[in-house]
């Protein structure tokens, strides 16, 4: 009981993810399952980004590169090498982590705005590379033969299975986020976020800590990329590396509360709901990104700590639950 109580923040977060996913599980409604699938994907991406943005204080504008890169590698393994989805997801996570490790060594020496600019450059560079890389289909990308789904009991079954895998990934990423937040490693990251020089003077080996934070923030997006494009049935550069999705990820993290475990979950869910309403409305469907931009501006100006951060300040007693 006592240990449960110590981890109330984790339990709250996991329960909320399950509540978000429960409707289509109960009803079996395929349309609502698709909606929740995108929400869960957003939760994985936002929570991953939060490890870098919220805990370490480094803004990555090109974080979607890990989703796209992992997705491409996974897709290639399934279609060209005949590997299973499991191998593809694992490989997607590993190559994204590896990419982050190498990038981290190169660009994490940059601070603040310079790092943010470099991440945009990386996303564009990887997209340009894939655009010209024939084994990955160049600018037209790759498509999956429908027969691949037979292995998983047909296309319908494969779609349903993808949903449950995404749910598991979302739960795992929340656990990762919580473990990092409450670990000694996480304390070092928070110290870097607050004052990198002071952290180093106290003995935090910032170059290593930042690199590992970057790697951890890249693994799950890579796995999700592999799963997403498996379910999608095709992959092409514009779908894999959409820069605006990177920015939407930042909005989700900021909206819910950067640096908290629960914040990115609520931010992702709330943002996806809003986005769903906007793109189906005749007035807003063409300017929904402008609304996101405006939203980001309002958050930064008025609630920089996000919803959860604000609630934690407002009701300190709730801090154990809202982590």
């Amino acid at each position, binding site marked *: 009981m006592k240990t449960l109580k110590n981890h109330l923040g984790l339990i709250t977060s996991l329960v909320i993810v399950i509540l978000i996913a429960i409707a289509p599980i109960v009803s079996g409604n395929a349309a609502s399952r698709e909606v929740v699938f995108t929400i869960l994907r957003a939760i994985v991406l936002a929570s991953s980004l939060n490890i870098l943005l919220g805990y370490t204080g480094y803004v990555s504008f090109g974080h979607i590169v890990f989703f796209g890169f992992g997705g491409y590698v996974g897709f290639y393994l399934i279609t060209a090498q005949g590997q299973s989805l499991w191998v593809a997801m694992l490989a997607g996570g590993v190559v994204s982590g590896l990419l982050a490790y190498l990038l981290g060594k190169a660009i994490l020496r940059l601070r603040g705005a310079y790092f943010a600019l470099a991440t945009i450059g990386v996303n564009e560079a990887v997209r340009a590379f894939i655009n010209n890389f024939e084994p990955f289909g160049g600018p037209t990308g790759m498509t999956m033969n429908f027969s691949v789904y037979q292995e998983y009991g047909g296309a319908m079954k494969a779609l349903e299975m993808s949903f449950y895998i995404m749910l598991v990934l979302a739960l795992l990423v929340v656990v990762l986020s919580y473990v990092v937040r409450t670990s000694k490693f996480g*304390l*070092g990251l928070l110290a870097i976020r607050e004052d990198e020089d002071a952290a180093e003077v106290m003995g935090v*080996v910032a170059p290593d800590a930042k690199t590992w934070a970057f790697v951890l923030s890249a693994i799950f997006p890579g796995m999700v990329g592999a799963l997403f494009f498996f379910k999608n049935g095709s992959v092409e550069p514009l779908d894999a590396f959409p820069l605006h999705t990177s920015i939407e990820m930042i909005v989700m993290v900021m909206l819910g509360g950067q640096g908290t475990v629960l914040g990115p979950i609520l931010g992702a869910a709330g943002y996806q709901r809003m986005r769903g309403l906007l793109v189906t409305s005749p007035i807003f469907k063409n300017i929904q990104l402008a609304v996101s931009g405006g939203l980001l501006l309002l958050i930064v100006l008025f609630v920089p700590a996000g919803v959860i951060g604000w609630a934690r300040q407002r009701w300190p007693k709730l801090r154990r639950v809202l982590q």
Partner: protein
Amino acid sequence: MMILQVQGVSKNFGGLQALSNVTFDLPEGQILGLIGPNGAGKTTLFNVINGVYTPSEGRVIFRGKDVTGQKTYHMAHAGMARTHQIVKPLNDLTVMENVMVGACFGRESHNLKKARQIAEEVLDFVGLAERAEQLAGSLNVGQKKRLEMARALASHPYLLLLDEVLAGLNPSEIAHMVDIVRRIREQGITIIMIEHVMHAIMNVSDRILVLDYGQQIAEGSPEEISQNPKVIEAYLGDPKLAERLMEGGE
């Protein structure tokens, strides 16, 4: 045993010679006072000792090992801790978490549980125990200075570099802080302190080193230093000036 040896250290920034040929040895357990007018290079000397800057020339030897050009975190792991003249609290973390960073990542590299225990002791020692769960950003200047001190102490360092921990404090806070410094020394920790509050530093130091324009102009006991004409000149201008003015007046 010499805990720190600074040998012929110079540092220049472009054309500016911030330190030139500074040399001194520091025996274990002493308090060395570092004084000098503004811009004399005192903080630069700290930055060279704890690895913020690499010296342009010379060597720094800490506990018998050449540590010239090592990073600040290497120095922290080796057992050197410091406070900053301009305080650097981790604003959005609690006072407790701030101090735990020192205990977790410093010389002894404790786990979180042990670090919390040490942080509690240290916060009690500097008189911040009741503020442990407050955010560091909400402390006042005097409390932030004590927080800097607590963070440094939590790593259980061999050598502590204190950069103007008394500046900006009121007289009763100064008395409190001087008492803390004395008690730190009693624990066997060697200290170098930069200070402008003369009566305090003269009282507490075993030896004093005086810098002026990056040059080491005097070194000795507090009594020797207070009578050294070069030191008086650096602080007050020409020592003969007063005499000559008196003579001229007659």
